[in-house]
């Protein structure tokens, strides 16, 4: 269980005696109590998938996607507070568009990840603001290489082959490690990502969720594409079938 930060957790600009910033740790908790987001670098592309937990059947489907276009070639998946994720997406979009205009070429993902990280970190330094309560996965397929960066509420970021954040991140990361990413095509990666989301979804606690999927690959010519229609249905069915198989194994 987490240590109580009594007295040292009122301000993000205050350290605790052990050298922790409790507000940042609480921001991580916001991410951990939200639906899982998964990113996978396949042989020829990157897949993003999010377990978008929906709390009411009254919502229109896909009204609050958790996968965002940042630029034509960059996509973002978010776990945590959705309004915070939207703010990060807005900043990221401005940075990417600015870069395109001043450089005459699309922004490299490594640069964008660095800027997003600087932004999220900046909000951990002043008492007038609070840290972002979201973690983001940034994906692009640049010059034939798939790239995935994960940025956390503290601002720390790494480049990953595959990563997961959110509720079931441990289970999801274990599942990702089982995949042979170097051989996996992006088209199959979409199905595998869906399968991971379904298998990590807790049926009891969160009844209803939407699967947000996106793909940036050689097939999409480097464009970030939200997966819908047939491809989405195929992935979703593959995931559900795998789940049933697994469940029926359990019965034995």
């Amino acid at each position, binding site marked *: 269980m987490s240590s109580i930060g009594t007295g040292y957790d009122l301000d993000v600009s205050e350290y605790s005696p052990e050298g922790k910033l409790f507000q940042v740790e609480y921001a991580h908790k916001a991410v951990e109590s939200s639906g899982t987001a998964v990113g996978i670098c396949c042989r020829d592309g990157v897949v993003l998938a999010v377990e978008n937990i929906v709390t009411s059947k009254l919502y229109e489907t896909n009204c609050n996607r958790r996968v965002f276009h940042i630029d034509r070639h960059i996509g973002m998946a978010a776990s945590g507070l959705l309004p915070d994720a939207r703010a990060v997406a807005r900043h990221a979009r401005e940075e990417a568009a600015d870069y395109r205009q*001043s*450089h*005459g*070429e699309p922004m*490299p993902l*490594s*640069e964008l990840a*660095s800027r997003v990280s600087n932004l999220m970190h900046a909000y951990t330094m002043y008492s007038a603001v609070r840290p972002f309560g979201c973690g983001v996965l940034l994906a692009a397929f640049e*010059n034939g290489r798939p790239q995935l960066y994960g940025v956390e509420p503290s601002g720390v970021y790494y480049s990953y082959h595959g990563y997961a954040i959110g509720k079931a991140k441990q289970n999801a990361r274990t599942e990702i490690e089982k995949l042979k990413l170097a051989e996996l095509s992006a088209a199959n990666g979409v199905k595998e990502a869906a399968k991971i989301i379904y298998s990590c979804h807790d049926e009891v606690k969160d009844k209803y969720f939407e699967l947000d999927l996106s793909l940036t690959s050689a097939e999409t010519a480097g464009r970030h594409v939200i997966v819908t229609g047939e491809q989405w249905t195929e992935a979703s069915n593959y995931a559900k079938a795998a789940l049933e198989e697994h469940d029926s194994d359990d019965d034995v």
Partner: protein
Amino acid sequence: MLADWTQQEVLTGTTIMAVEYNGGVVIGADSRTSSGTYVTNRTQDKLTPLTEYIYCCRSGSAADTQAIADHVRYYLDFSRISQGREPTVRYAAHVMQSILYNNRDNLSAAVIVAGWDEVNGGQVYCIPLGGLLVRQPMAAGGSGSTYIWGHLDAQFKPGMTDTECQEFVAKSVSLAIKRDGSSGGVCRLAVINRRRRTTAHYHARRFAKVVRWLN
């Protein structure tokens, strides 16, 4: 009583040229800077490095182009540090263009940005007065270029080797020097590719070659 030329701005009435080949670019320029009818510098180097792999050929006001080149060099240095790789020629040309376009009313400068990068190989970008940016396989500028456009159009062919490009540029700049009073001195030549930048100077009259290697 001061002579006319002391009151006049220093211009690089010039011939500058750049040609792409498969694997790099060849750039060339004359070496005359004039102030009215007085030649202030007969050995001027108008081929100015922006980075190790990207050069610009300068024409128009010498002061304007030198100051702008310094600015562009600053942006590119910063970019190299923050991105951890050499800037692309396209970015260099874009930075140059944004300065030239946004200050077009106060500047008299036309440049050719040419160089090599890993992404797209040898590239030549022409930025004439006003700040238009266009990539071309071959570009020429300065007052001397007007005298050789016919020659360039007739002699240029795509897919030349670097040696053929060097001869082409040396000959063309020398011909312009012959006819344009504002161009003179030697033809400075540089080849920019993945491995090295080499420079050579050709004397316009005799095409005598003095070769100096950089690094």
